[in-house]
């Protein structure tokens, strides 16, 4: 130890999987984190129970249960994505996190993967709760006619929401600003595109809400048309990928306080 150089030849870099596991741990080791994760499941369950109580018995099929879970999870999961980024700045732990892993791209990537894993967890929880509802009081044949696309679309929607949350978190590095923008901006956009007649034709291409509408209407059946998929693609590019890239560029260059 007494010479002037550090021997780093025997040290392995922090493995990506370990970093991701730590990010998930950090989401669940505070009361706020536990509440948010618990809330995701509770709110999903609550919506399903309400649906269970109001729906006709023949509508109580798994596909519908999953569909009903999309709304509450679409609210909560993006907030989870936002917090995964912004809590590091709000609580100033970014200094510690990035001192232990100076590769900023690697840290952000591990946060993205951690968020996706948590989203996948919410997806599994939704299926589990939905299956339970269907088993307990569902229609006869509630598990019939299941389509893989129903699940994929649901999962896709969740993932888009999480990524959008991450992107806004990266841009603002501030929890309230990111959350407010996440919820207000799409509404403002939808209003503008609905009100201004000249914009109405381009709405599905630019407005996230308009483009995602078909996803919510699919329910247990139906397929997306090629056009609708293209709409989803361009809006995801504008509303999710672009903010993500801008936010990432900001974090890569910023001074971490």
């Amino acid at each position, binding site marked *: *130890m*007494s*010479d*002037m*150089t*550090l021997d*780093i030849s025997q*040290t*392995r*870099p*922090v*493995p990506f999987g*370990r*970093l991701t*596991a*730590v990010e998930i*741990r*950090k989401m669940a*080791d*505070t*009361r*706020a*984190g536990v509440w948010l994760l618990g809330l995701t499941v509770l709110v999903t369950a609550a919506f399903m129970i309400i649906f269970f109580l109001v729906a006709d018995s023949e509508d109580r099929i798994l596909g519908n249960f999953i569909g009903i879970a999309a709304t509450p999870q679409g609210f909560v999961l993006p907030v989870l994505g936002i917090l995964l980024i912004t*809590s590091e700045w709000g*609580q*100033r*732990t970014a*200094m*510690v996190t*990035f*001192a*232990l*892993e*100076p*590769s900023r791209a690697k840290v952000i990537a591990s946060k993205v993967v951690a968020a996706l894993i948590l989203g996948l967890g919410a997806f599994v929880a939704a299926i589990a709760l939905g299956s339970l509802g269907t088993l307990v009081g569902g229609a006869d044949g509630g598990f019939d006619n299941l389509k893989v696309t129903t699940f994929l679309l649901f999962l896709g929607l969740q993932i888009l929401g999480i990524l959008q949350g991450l992107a806004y978190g990266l841009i603002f590095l501030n929890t309230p600003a990111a959350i407010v923008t996440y919820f207000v901006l799409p509404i403002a956009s939808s209003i503008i595109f609905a009100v201004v007649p000249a914009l109405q034709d381009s709405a599905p291409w630019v407005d996230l809400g308009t483009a995602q509408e078909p996803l919510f209407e699919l329910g247990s059946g139906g397929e997306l048309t090629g056009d609708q998929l293209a709409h989803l693609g361009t809006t995801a590019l504008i509303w999710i990928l672009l903010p993500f890239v801008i936010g990432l560029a900001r974090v890569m*260059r910023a*001074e*971490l*306080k």
Partner: protein
Amino acid sequence: MIDVTGLTKSYGGFLAVDDISFRCQPGRVTGFLGPNGAGKTTTMRVMVGLTPATRGDVRIGGHRYQDIPNPGTHVGVLLDASAQHAGRTGREVLMVGAKTMGLPESRVDEMLELVSLSQTEAKRRLRNYSLGMRQRLGIAHALLGDPSVLILDEPANGLDPAGIRWMRDLLKHYADRGGTVLLSSHLLNEVELIADDMILIGRGKIVAEGTKKALLAERSTGTLVTAVDNEALSTALAGAGLTVHAAGDGLRVEAEPLQVGQVAADQRLVLAELRPAGGGLESLFLELTSDSQRDDLTEPIEPQGAPA
């Protein structure tokens, strides 16, 4: 072990750190001393890659910090003891660090014991920690990966005198085993207690550096002495070939206290006070940073009228 070369960091037109170079040796505790806003924290943040340098270079053991794999196992960093999630328990803060570095859980308990945080305290959330407890936890976090270099920003801030002594012993042992320590402080007596080498910084520039002993010796300005009969003492000292100046109630002599005491004893003169002039490093610190102090200490502080 830590080499800073021509480091400059500017924010717009403001030079937070202005072309500084220094080196921290292994086996020694280097104190980084300066008034608030002198550039200590900025320098340390550049060292660990959190702040990009405008110019210049920092190498730790020959490497850029960003190039050190699993850096926590080589360089222990404490930049701000309060920069931890208020909702995590002390133990969990260490667990997150240990998991990231790939260390066993037993290491967390070892470190808690090292910094004298009890298991009960470790289960409390950080919002309930005093600053002193946060500093201890921060030190534990920095030492988790058994690093050979420590970079600590104001680690003694918030510690009581016993805590400062504890930290001195801890860092001294660490350095004795060959570790390199750089610690900053804006309080002179902290650094005076803990450090072997000192770097004084003011307004982004290094104003003095060297071993604590050398810096003290250089600044020695003789002895202050007060006798019951100053006149007789003055004559006796001049007779012994020493240069004597009047100073306040007594005399300032350009000699060591021992010489002055000997002369007084020989002449059977009664002394009321005998001490080295200059007040240790304090006058050095104030003098060297005087033009970078926010408060002008040469003017007596007058009470100001009530602000409008």
